[in-house]
């Protein structure tokens, strides 16, 4: 049995293959890493027009319960009681030591219902964790019958509005249900590229039809996981498993902004004492943007040193930023070295290369607020 035979498929697999995609295993799925356009042009295309991504491997679920907001607040530090129907919040599932089990999007559906979108690689664990911890208070229903597309880029709005006029007036991080040529869809004005755009949850059976309709529009190209990674890196967004994991806390990950004022005052989330202490006093290490000063990209796990050769951290994501037109990275450094402009030394193939702490994002976000 080959590895490919063990992989799961999204409803769009046949479409990817017909478009000439190079398919690779990712989080247990057979996924397109790039199309004939190539990673570099796919990346640039998404920033100038619109790119269509298959993110159906991600986990979708509904969480219902009379006090569902309060229930889920026991597992995440985000303000969910303040989340109105149709609003989306980016938050973090935390363990008892304040480590990050996953990052996720939580959408308010109605007073007793939340819609969750979590990462592919961690979805089974996430959903089991939530169902177990909230047993008796909330019921989790997975939506494996739904695909997820992302349409990202400056022309995403005009393209999608041809099919669903109401999308034009949605603001960033809001959601609505509608129909796409008679297909019921849940729309999110969100994404993970730093660009304006949408994520569209569609019944599996209609996913290929909707994807083909979007791809037939001028300026829309299919985009693979390769460009998805370089786009989110330039946008300063964390990749779960690389930039954040169970060994990093929200404060260390520079994600204090996900913890709202009420949650800081009240606590009541896992490891709240530790995390609130870190918010106040700082954490021993911090995630920062890192700009290599030469041309050589520095990849994940590259050692970071200070000027005296002492190890002070490690790169967690790094590569070439096509829109930035140079190498970009992020990683963790000891707190004393986290200020923007601090000189760093990166050990690339045994050679010390100069770099500095850079402000994130590398490419400005262009969300529709």
């Amino acid at each position, binding site marked *: 049995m080959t590895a490919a035979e063990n992989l799961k498929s999204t409803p769009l697999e046949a479409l990817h293959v017909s478009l000439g995609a190079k398919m690779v295993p990712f989080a247990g799925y057979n996924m397109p890493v790039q199309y004939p356009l190539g*990673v570099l042009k796919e*990346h640039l295309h998404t920033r100038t027009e619109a790119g269509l991504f298959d993110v159906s491997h991600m986990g979708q679920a509904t969480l219902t319960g009379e006090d569902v907001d309060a229930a889920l607040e026991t597992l995440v530090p985000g303000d969910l009681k303040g989340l109105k129907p149709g609003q989306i919040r980016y938050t973090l599932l935390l363990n008892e030591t304040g480590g990050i089990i996953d990052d996720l999007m939580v959408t308010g559906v109605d007073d007793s219902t939340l819609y969750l979108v979590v990462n592919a690689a961690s979805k089974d664990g996430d959903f089991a964790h939530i169902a177990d911890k909230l047993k008796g208070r909330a019921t989790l229903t997975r939506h494996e019958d739904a695909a997820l597309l992302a349409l990202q880029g400056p022309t995403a709005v005009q393209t999608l509005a041809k099919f669903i006029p109401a999308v034009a007036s949605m603001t960033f991080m809001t959601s609505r249900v509608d129909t796409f040529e008679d297909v019921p869809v849940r729309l999110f004005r969100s994404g993970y590229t730093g660009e304006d755009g949408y994520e569209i949850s569609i019944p599996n059976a209609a996913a290929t039809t909707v994807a083909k309709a979007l791809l037939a529009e001028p300026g829309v190209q299919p985009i693979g996981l*390769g460009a998805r990674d370089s786009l989110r890196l330039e946008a300063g967004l964390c990749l779960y498993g690389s930039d954040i994991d169970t060994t990093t806390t929200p404060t260390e990950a520079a994600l204090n902004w996900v913890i709202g004022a009420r949650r800081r005052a009240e606590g009541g989330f896992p490891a709240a004492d530790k995390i609130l202490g870190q918010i106040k006093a700082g954490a021993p290490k911090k995630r920062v943007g890192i700009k290599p000063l030469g041309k*050589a990209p520095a990849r994940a796990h590259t050692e970071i040193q200070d000027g005296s050769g002492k190890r002070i951290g490690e790169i967690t994501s790094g590569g*070439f930023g096509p829109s930035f037109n140079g190498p970009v990275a992020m990683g963790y450094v000891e707190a004393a070295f986290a200020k923007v402009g601090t000189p760093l030394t990166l050990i690339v193939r045994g050679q010390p290369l100069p770099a500095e702490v850079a402000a994130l994002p590398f490419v400005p976000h262009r969300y529709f607020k």
Partner: protein
Amino acid sequence: MSQTRFTKDHEWIKVDGNVGTVGITEFAQGQLGDIVFVEVPPAGKAVKAGGEAAVVESVKAASEVYSPVSGTVKEGNSALPDAPETVNSDPRGKGWFFKIELSDVKELDGLMDQAAYDKFVAELS
């Protein structure tokens, strides 16, 4: 009379007398995708057959370029670091990485000729 030989790591070497020019193949550039960074070895660097000699990076990943033969680097292609995309557009021509003075021309006998390499690549896909 020059001859061109190939490695299983998809490097080519074109040899005139005891000096060879080294690059990566059309197949290799296609597999790597858009090349965004190249590092070539300095003149005078001693390399061994199969040893790391240069670096090529796409948006996604870094790869080593191995020397097909042992010898001393005569020259790195100084145009490449400023125009790494040349490796994509002209891998067998302007996209060469380095020239090397072979220490043992007999090492070429262990490499593939064009026909053998073409067959090797065909069997990969």
